[in-house]
């Protein structure tokens, strides 16, 4: 009989300390040995993980009221501007924001040593952060400027809210041009000098649930070392299957997640300020999602391997920047992890930007939380758009 489990049944097993939990890496060998049917029967939860730069990240902070009060029309944290165009003393610090006066790329390539992601890291690490605010003064908020230090413990709420995280899949970036380029995919040497990819492959959350059968609105997750939730689909969420002109399937791509969680319980080693030479500042986010093995179909997807999952190879020398569609073929994560791929007939050294060891660690931590009964699974309150919805990107036309 085909396996069918409910969230309630799996949670009952978790509470009783009897749930069988494997990481997305461990489950691969089990399925290879026992087959999907038996593995689906035996395993209750598969844990995934990813640890990658995720630029679309930031935190809402409520900074508290000074005496006299200030509306905080503009806010800086360690000289990095935070968006304050919301209610008094609320601000959003975005991961890619640069300090006021940062030379950026004026002395190319810029170093981008500090930005919003580093502010978030410093807050989570318990470091004091310099707060500067100005306003125009009102009858109810008379103060016009303020300078002080805050720590994460001092302020009221601090909520990490990342509008686009956990990319299902990502390009493998190469450079066909004749000069070195500096991109969000790292430094790319000319004439196919190197290839950079950015995914945990077989450990990566959305590659293991490509049809969004279990990951949805309200799914409880590992976020930045604490507990978070899927808040919505991410921006640019266009899930689908990669196919070439002959109809060959190269695995899923295109999904993203918006995630949210209490910054105060997160850990600095899972939210790390990040700098891309010649590109900008960002935040590396640790994120892990449990997949309840409800049935064989869920298990079949959860157990796919690096051999089945592929990244499209894209030229960042020209094609990406100029929005020229198409790619130079696909590379499997197994080939990418071997350290060499073939592009246009040339052997190209391949390196990751996403830490596979940290992804493995996240999947193991989440597994431990579930095994200890501390972390229960949540049934999505609403499903997210999946490949069958056929979402595609709108482009921005320049109108005069």
């Amino acid at each position, binding site marked *: 009989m085909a396996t069918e489990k409910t969230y309630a049944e799996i949670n009952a097993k978790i509470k009783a300390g009897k749930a069988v939990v494997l990481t997305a890496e461990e489950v691969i060998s089990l399925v290879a040995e026992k087959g999907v049917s038996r593995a689906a029967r035996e395993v209750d939860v598969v844990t995934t993980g990813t640890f990658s730069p995720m630029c679309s990240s930031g935190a809402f902070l409520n900074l508290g009221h000074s005496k006299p009060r200030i509306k905080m029309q503009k806010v800086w944290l360690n000289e990095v501007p935070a968006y304050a165009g919301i209610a008094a003393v609320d601000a959003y610090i975005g991961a890619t924001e640069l300090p006021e006066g940062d030379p950026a790329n004026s002395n190319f390539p810029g170093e981008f040593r500090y930005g919003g992601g580093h502010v978030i890291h410093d807050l989570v690490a318990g470091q004091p952060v310099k707060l500067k605010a100005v306003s125009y003064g009102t009858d109810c908020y008379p103060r016009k400027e303020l300078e002080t230090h805050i720590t994460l413990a001092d302020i009221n709420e601090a909520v990490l809210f990342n509008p686009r995280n956990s990319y299902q899949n990502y390009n493998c970036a190469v450079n066909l041009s004749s000069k070195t380029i500096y991109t969000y995919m790292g430094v790319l040497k000319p004439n196919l000098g190197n290839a950079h990819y950015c995914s945990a492959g077989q450990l990566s959350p959305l590659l293991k649930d490509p049809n969004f059968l279990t990951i949805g609105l309200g799914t409880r997750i590992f976020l930045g070392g604490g507990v978070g939730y899927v808040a919505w689909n991410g921006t640019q969420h266009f899930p689908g299957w990669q196919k070439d002109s002959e109809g060959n399937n190269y695995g899923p791509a295109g999904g993203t997640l918006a995630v949210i969680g209490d910054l105060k319980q997160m850990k600095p080693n899972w939210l790390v300020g990040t700098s891309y030479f010649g590109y900008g500042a960002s935040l590396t986010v640790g994120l892990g999602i449990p997949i309840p093995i409800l049935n064989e179909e869920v298990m079949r997807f959860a157990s796919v391997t690096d051999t089945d999952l592929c990244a499209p190879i894209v030229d960042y020398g020209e094609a990406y920047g100029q929005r020229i569609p198409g790619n130079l073929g696909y590379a499997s994560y197994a080939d990418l992890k071997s350290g060499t791929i073939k592009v246009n007939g040339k052997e190209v050294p391949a390196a990751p930007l996403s*830490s596979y060891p940290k992804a493995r660690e996240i999947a193991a931590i989440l597994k431990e939380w579930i095994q200890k009964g501390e972390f229960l699974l949540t049934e999505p309150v609403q499903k997210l758009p999946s490949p069958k919805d056929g979402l595609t990107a709108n482009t921005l036309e320049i109108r005069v």
Partner: protein
Amino acid sequence: MSPKKIVLRFGGDISDKPIIYHLAKDYDLVFNIVKANVDPQKEGTMVLELTGEKYDQGLAFLQSQGVKVQPLTEEVIINKEKCTSCGACTALCPTGALYLHRPSMEVDFNGDDCVVCQLCLKVCPVRAMEVRF
């Protein structure tokens, strides 16, 4: 006079020229190649111990040939507390001193292969590479 350690960097356009040969033949310098990573048509690096009376002329010759020369007085180290093993440095390190263990995908650093070009200090996204003087 004790030999000086220097780092030479060759552009891809000159890496196939017999430059070191001229140091011995034309300038009578004694050299010891400590490390070398020079492939035709690719950027190359070499660490030399160099001594001799025409040392300064030899260095001027190297520079006239387009070789970048700098003294080897610095050492690059990896801060394991900061390194996240993302791997971003590994295809850029010119000598393979930074590399990935496979299949664990942990980043490791072999200081013996490092020529202190310091590219890793710039490309490491989390600033885990440091230089010691």
